[in-house]
């Protein structure tokens, strides 16, 4: 069974449609990149799948059932900028929040949860920062804390919203090896991505999105100039410089 089945989902803010009639099946055990221009509805798609915003129409199934009954199977990495990093708490505490969905009402995280959280921090190379106040972490480290929190959710399907934005090279590497590890465990990961240069390298499958689904499939099949042109519209000259290897400056 497909981990995620999105059928005919439409989302509108006020009267402006943000996503129109989105239908797709996510294949199991793949790393799927979502690309599209600003305002294409990439984050909105994740939020609609997770029931964080109301949909005008359509349904989402996680392993054949509505999201509400499958929450424990799903891990979520929101955009780093969506929270206040001055909140009085430390890295371990944030990662422990990934356990809250498993703990249930009126109970506190126990030793087992702490062990899982520390292990998750270790996997992203942040174990020694466990007791560090979150405002004292760099942007990349904060992103890794968010990833560790998703790992602590111990999910089967992951949704990550722009995890690569504004991170250092070490964090980028850490995220990539983590994604590959998740894939090796047979988990399915959908990542909103902004950097077209790295799509082919990072993702097995690609979803091209601009309010509507332009294409979804194995990256080598759908990540074509033709599809990109459909997704990004007239900004082709910009695409040429991004995709033509002779112009690419290695950073």
């Amino acid at each position, binding site marked *: 069974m497909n981990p995620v089945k999105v059928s005919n989902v439409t989302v509108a803010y*006020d009267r402006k449609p943000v996503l129109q009639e989105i239908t797709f099946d996510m294949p199991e055990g793949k790393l799927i990149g979502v690309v599209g221009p600003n305002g294409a509805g990439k984050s909105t798609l994740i*939020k609609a799948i*997770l*029931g*964080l915003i109301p949909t005008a129409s359509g349904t989402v199934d996680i392993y054949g059932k509505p999201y*509400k009954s499958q*929450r424990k199977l*799903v891990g*979520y990495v*929101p955009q780093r900028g*969506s*929270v*206040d990093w001055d*909140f*009085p*708490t*430390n890295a371990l505490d*944030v990662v422990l*929040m990934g356990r*809250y*969905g498993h*703990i249930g*009402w*009126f109970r*506190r*995280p126990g030793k087992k949860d702490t062990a899982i959280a520390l292990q998750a921090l270790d996997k992203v190379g942040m174990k020694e920062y466990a007791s560090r*106040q979150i*405002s004292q972490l760099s942007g990349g480290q904060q992103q890794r804390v968010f990833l560790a*929190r998703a790992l602590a*959710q111990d999910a089967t399907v992951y949704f990550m919203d722009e995890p690569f934005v504004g991170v250092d090279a070490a964090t980028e590497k850490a995220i990539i090896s983590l994604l590959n590890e998740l894939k090796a465990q047979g988990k399915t990961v959908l990542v909103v991505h902004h950097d077209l240069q790295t799509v082919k390298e990072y993702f097995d499958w690609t979803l091209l999105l601009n309010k509507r689904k332009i294409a979804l499939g194995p990256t080598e099949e759908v990540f074509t100039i033709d599809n990109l042109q459909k997704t990004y519209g007239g900004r082709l000259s910009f695409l040429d410089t991004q995709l033509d290897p002779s112009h690419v400056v290695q950073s």
Partner: protein
Amino acid sequence: MSYGAWIMLTGSLVGVTCGIVGCFLILRKMAMLADAISHTVLLGIVLAYLVSHSLEGIYMLVGAGIIGLLTAFLVQVLHTSGVQSDAAIGVVFTSLFAFGVILLSAFAGKVHLDVNHALMGEITFIPWNTLTIGGMNLGPSAVWMLGSVLLINLILIFLFYKEIKISSFDPAMASAIGIPVMFIHYLLMSMVSITTVASFDSVGAILVVAMLIVPGATAYLLTDKLIVMLVISAAIGVIAAIGGYYAALIWNISISGSMASIAGLIFAVTFILSPKHGLMAKLIARRSIVAEQS
């Protein structure tokens, strides 16, 4: 207990109760909503009196709780339908408060409250308004009311600590994992409402905002741990209450006014001197960075 001791106990209970709830308002950036609720509960109190013909604490708490929730709900409705959140707060709060003032003036002869009292409070009268059960004098009724509200708040925070924490830090994640973020929001707003009404008689609608916001804002500058922030905030509330009482005695000034002023003073000193987030610490850090670079 002496007259002064009762006033200090009442003030300290106001400080602790407001200080603890106030931390969550600071962290959720909702100070203005607390301001609104602290005023609109006046309507709740007047309505509760008109319905029950009594000034018993329980009616006041229920009335204020309902109007407090109504305030939070109306603000939410206006905001989600496109009104800017500060404008939504301004419209709802002034309208409900004005309605309360009109009712109060229309039935002024019957209600023992007056607008001035509601706005400013009068902690000096607290020790004479005592609770008597079966002929036994149990001390000021304000102390009992504040004590009960503090207990209710502590129980709710204890029970829902992790839910309040995650929905304050990351509401999107919280609702993704199935935590009812709106329920937690209204729970906190109910706590603010009953806290306000319990503190009303002592410090009034305007200064209760000082007791809700200032200790929490000060504690925020002093610690990086939520639980420590709650404790510091409560402690600052107590210091402000006791310090305010003595300052009022010495200079023969309004007790509630001087309590709020002491709280403001503590904030000002912390803002300048806090080792982690203070003005001085930041200046010194900036200097040392410049010095390193040169």
